[in-house]
């Protein structure tokens, strides 16, 4: 006696590589203002990214992970999230942070090696950047649990890379989201690479979205360079989540157009042709084309936007470069709510040393 249990995931795409509609667009496409704001955020993010890489190259910033190729999905996430929702990032979510209200200065400070870069005055409930891969997924279900416990109609978006989906944290967390029916949407930014490890080596699964099935969650694939596919999927999943209908996993298929970080050289492990093909699918250009074709954009508008974004970034960089590091004593000031007696002597030593003009040093 045999029985079948069937499952599926679906994938969505609205725009072709040139920004032409492949058929009917979702209702989101009617909100031109939102679409224009999205495009602006993509360009700002890309401008910020290029500048930060340049800063790193000249020794003015630490190791930095380029967001090139993630601007569209990141912008869609930032727009779909309500102010009262919580965002749980990984480390390549610049496009989202900007929309959430983290300042460019804060982002520069963070990657420039200054803890104040995570103090985020304007999005105080968002989780900080998570460096240990996939660990943030557990935080996301924790935040979502808090919403459920308190009966709040808020939701969480958690980002994770394709590489991150191999780590227990992601798999355990989607399972909890399914078991507890939590208002959390996991967005897997499948950019085809985890440093030098291609998607095919990461998992034998045909899609990453199907990992949702293991948790009893719905899984969707969207073209992560297709703004309309992305916002539709996000809006839908977040509305469901806020309405108490549970979580989801969205696989956003895109490509990491830059090196993994400024410490990486991607030419070692991937071909120029592959990269070239990926650029043909660039979602920022695609949306620009779409706006052009639909009459909402022009070369002049583009020029003005580029200039505005450049200026915004330059201003932030100026302040960043003029910001002194924290006093070394800060390393003990945020460890606990108040300094334990056991550490008072250590703080005094640091204070005395740096008053004395030392440039470094332990105890």
């Amino acid at each position, binding site marked *: 006696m045999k029985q079948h249990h069937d499952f599926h995931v679906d994938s969505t795409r609205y725009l072709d590589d040139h920004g032409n509609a492949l058929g009917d667009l979702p209702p989101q496409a009617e909100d031109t203002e939102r679409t224009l704001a999205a495009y602006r955020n993509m360009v700002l993010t890309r401008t910020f990214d290029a500048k930060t890489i340049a800063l790193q190259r000249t020794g003015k910033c630490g190791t930095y992970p380029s967001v090139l190729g993630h601007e569209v999905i990141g912008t869609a996430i930032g727009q779909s999230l309500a102010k009262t929702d919580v965002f749980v990032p990984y480390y390549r979510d610049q496009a989202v942070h900007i929309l959430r209200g983290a300042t460019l200065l804060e982002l520069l400070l963070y990657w420039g090696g200054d803890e104040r870069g995570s103090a985020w005055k304007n999005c105080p409930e968002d989780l900080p950047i998570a460096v240990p891969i996939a660990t943030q997924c*557990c935080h996301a279900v924790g935040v979502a649990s808090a919403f459920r416990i308190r009966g709040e109609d808020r939701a969480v978006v958690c980002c994770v890379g394709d590489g991150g989906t191999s780590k227990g944290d992601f798999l355990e967390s989607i399972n909890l989201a399914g078991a507890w029916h939590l208002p959390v949407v996991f967005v897997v930014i499948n950019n085809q690479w985890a440093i030098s490890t291609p998607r095919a080596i990461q998992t034998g699964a045909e899609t990453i979205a199907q990992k949702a099935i293991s948790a009893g969650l719905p899984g969707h694939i969207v073209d992560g360079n297709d703004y309309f596919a992305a916002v539709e999927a996000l809006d839908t999943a977040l509305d469901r989540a806020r309405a108490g209908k549970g979580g989801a996993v969205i696989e956003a298929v895109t490509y990491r157009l830059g090196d993994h970080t400024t410490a990486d050289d991607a030419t070692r492990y991937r071909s120029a042709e592959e990269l070239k093909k990926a650029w043909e699918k660039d979602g920022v250009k695609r949306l620009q084309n779409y706006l052009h074709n639909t009459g909402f954009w022009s070369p002049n508008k583009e020029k003005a936007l580029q200039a505005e974004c450049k200026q915004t970034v330059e201003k932030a960089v100026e302040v960043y470069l003029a910001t002194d590091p924290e006093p070394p004593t800060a390393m003990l000031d945020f460890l606990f709510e108040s300094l334990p007696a056991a550490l008072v002597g250590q703080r005094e030593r640091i204070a005395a040393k740096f008053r004395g003009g030392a440039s470094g040093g332990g105890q």
Partner: protein
Amino acid sequence: MSVPEIREVTLVEAVNMALAWEMGQDENVVVLGEDVATNGGVFRATVGLKERFGFKRVMDTPLAENLIAGTAVGMATQGLKPVAEFQFMGFIYAGMEQIVSHAARMRNRTRGRLHCPIVYRAPFGGGIHAPEHHSESTEALFAHIPGLRVVIPSSPQRAYGLLLAAIRNPDPVVFLEPKRIYRAVTQSVPNNGEALPLDTCFTLREGDDVTLITWGACVQETLQAATRLIEQGVSSEVIDVATVSPLDRETLLCSVAKTGRAVIVHEACRNGGVGAEIAASIAESAFLDLQAPVVRVTGYDTIMPYYRNEQAYLPQVSDIIEAVEQVIAL
């Protein structure tokens, strides 16, 4: 539900009492872990909480310690005060990354924007005839991590008062419960919500000749040794460190300044145990006070044997007496 003012309780009952008290006072306190809700915990530490506070605040989780540790972090950033149970300390390692890399760092990382008022509870230590991995006492691992507090009660009263303090503390606390003495003794514990301080050792017995420094289940054997030593004319000061990190060196150094001798007793392996830090601190700061080297009475540097031989590993009263005789002879 009326709670008697003073109850005669065991250590594990005191844990339960403190949890119930604080959950009653503060709706942000939630409990999560494996088998903590319907079953009330495999040691019954959380018994009755689900019935009283409901499933929303007392949560049976899927079986995943990493998830438990990390979910608590997320909850904490939302202002909840999660008390997360690891069923045994031997299973805490899967949660290590979340504890070390997140719970302990969230406040520092965000410059105070978010913080983690979490209590990670775990029964610890050997001697209960359980299978492998049920006898861990690796408190030293957590004591070495900045941003964590490590607290170990050794009596019902201290379990009650220290757990209340741990829950109220705005930073993460690894709270290790010596399961060997979960039910060894009872004590009168007033159920009055009074917390104990998290930054001082407890001097359980005053004395002049030697300072016996210990924590956890070994407090029992150490007190017994002190009693027996009196018969030999040796007066011991017995200190329960209790808050293993950050460490109250003051109390320890004051005592050693008086006695001139120290013996440290713990169940964990000697090499790199918390006893090493205490011995190093005393030897450094009380160099001129010391009339004898600081001696450690500990488990061996090996894996706790299965139960047929577990007593051969655990420090006994006679080991402590022997060590004291040794330092007194100098």
